[in-house]
């Protein structure tokens, strides 16, 4: 049962030097309770398709798709007001740079209570109590005090926990995490990934994890979509992907992992796969 279904999505950006196609005819779907990883290197357009779902692309972007439905409802035909009822409530998103993703001028408490008050209609007191609960749920110690802190007073890992708390505040059915651990140290990455997986199971939500890191994929995904230069290269469940990658690009990526090195040299992408020439 797909909760999000996208068919033939194309996103084009108008730039000063002409138009640029970031996503080229991509199909993505994610089921309830499923963890989908979208993997790609820089320039693969892996974030763009999800930003399109969220309606977060700049005005220079043109989005076309044969289908883009959430829970059977057409996201493309929806009015902005209808769409906003979904965004931030049923579909939420967290980002790569946790510190920059929080507003430096407001306390983190303000930023989570805002969601609770406006999206869920909680009163001030109730919002505060719920914020404390959520902070506890994402493992922020001393939540009462931390609610009064500003983002710059917290570490990157803690800021990402705050972002996660905000994202799960409305008990969404789909959480999109865009490179949530790239800016963090490995030990913190582990904690954040464990937290996300635990929350995914507890809340029974679908999770789309956008990443460039095969390690993160191996540790989290049920199913994987591999993207390269705006196109889908492969889609498979995680075990088959690592066991028997079908596309040459995936094979190249996996063998470029230093931990898979067998001899003195790492195989490189060009050993497997003729890249399109870059202008």
């Amino acid at each position, binding site marked *: 049962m797909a909760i999000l279904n996208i068919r033939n999505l194309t996103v084009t950006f108008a730039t000063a030097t002409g138009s640029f196609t970031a996503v080229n005819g991509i199909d993505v779907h994610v089921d309830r*309770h499923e963890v989908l990883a979208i993997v790609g*290197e*820089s320039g693969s357009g892996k974030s763009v398709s999800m930003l399109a779902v969220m309606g977060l692309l700049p005005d220079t972007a043109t989005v076309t798709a044969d289908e883009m439905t959430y829970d059977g409802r057409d996201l493309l035909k929806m009015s902005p007001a209808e769409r906003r009822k979904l965004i931030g409530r049923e579909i939420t998103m967290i980002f790569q740079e946790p510190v920059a993703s929080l507003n430096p001028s407001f306390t983190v408490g303000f930023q989570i209570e805002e969601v609770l008050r406006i999206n869920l209609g909680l009163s001030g007191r109730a919002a505060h109590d719920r914020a404390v609960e959520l902070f506890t749920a994402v493992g922020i110690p001393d939540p009462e005090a931390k609610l009064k802190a500003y983002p710059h007073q917290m570490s990157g890992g803690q800021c990402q926990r705050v972002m996660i708390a905000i994202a799960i505040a409305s008990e969404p059915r789909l959480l999109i995490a865009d490179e949530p651990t790239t800016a963090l*140290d*490995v*030990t913190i*990455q*582990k904690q954040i990934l464990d937290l996300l997986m635990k929350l995914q*199971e507890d809340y029974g939500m679908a999770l789309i994890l956008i990443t*460039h*890191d*095969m*390690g*993160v994929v*191996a*540790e989290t995904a*049920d199913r994987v979509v591999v993207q390269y230069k705006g196109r889908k290269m492969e889609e498979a469940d*995680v*075990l088959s992907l*690592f*066991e028997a990658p079908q596309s040459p690009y995936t094979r*190249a*990526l*996996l063998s*470029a*992992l*230093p*931990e*898979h*090195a067998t001899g*003195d*040299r*790492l*195989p*490189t*992408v060009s050993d497997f796969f003729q890249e399109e020439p*870059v202008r």
Partner: protein
Amino acid sequence: MTPVVEGRAITRDYHAAGGMFSKGSTVRALKGVDFQVQKGKTLAIVGESGSGKSTLARIIALIDPPSSGEILIEGKPVDIAARRPGPEMRSKVQMVFQNPYGSLNPRQKVGDVLMEPLIINTKVPAAERRERAQAMLQKVGLQPEHFNRYPHMFSGGQRQRIAIARALMLNPSLLVLDEPVSALDLSVQAQVLNLLADLQDELGLTYVFVSHDLSVVRYIADDVMVISKGEAVEQGSREELFSNPRHPYTQQLFAATPATDLDAIRARVERRKAARLAAEA
């Protein structure tokens, strides 16, 4: 045999400037680190952000002086606080930085980037400088035609090749590599790591390789130093350290590094399935 580089009880303090009413405070970023690297070998320094690994790299590369302790290059103590390292020292120790987008002067053509060390430190005539720079471009896998281009015309991987070429222009014996591949995509990372390995073999280079990524370290290092909060918590050969990490921090680091082997993935998928079934029951 004299190690190419040796550090003895290296410390480094940072003085946070005091405000008008607060006393300046001192932060000790390195708390007495010892190490040595033999010719042709690679020492990997592994740590997370704030561990002091980059501070150490800058000290080894003779950019910053240590607050106390001693750096010896080919057995000779070097004190850059007392005397700026001259051409002789500069020709022995060079560095490659993490961010290939920041480490090349955007207003300097590639050729000038490569020839600058020769102009400053040697009396090599202009024609030969040019020849050497073009030869070096080829050595790192670029073309002589790239000589007159500006850095912004290159991809991240190509820029890192240029940075490596610049570091090699003076024929150094020691190369300090500060996270040289962490800003690169996986496929490009492999190419640069291969290049570094080739160059080491060909030129007999000694590497100090700073990284946060254990999988990269496992691939490239001969010896490993794990550093946390300014202290070298564990040091040893690669085989030793990877087969039997002893310090709790090292173990924690290993536990946190994602496992991409099939058994681990299979086990995780099974666990998840079981949990799902249990939840539904």
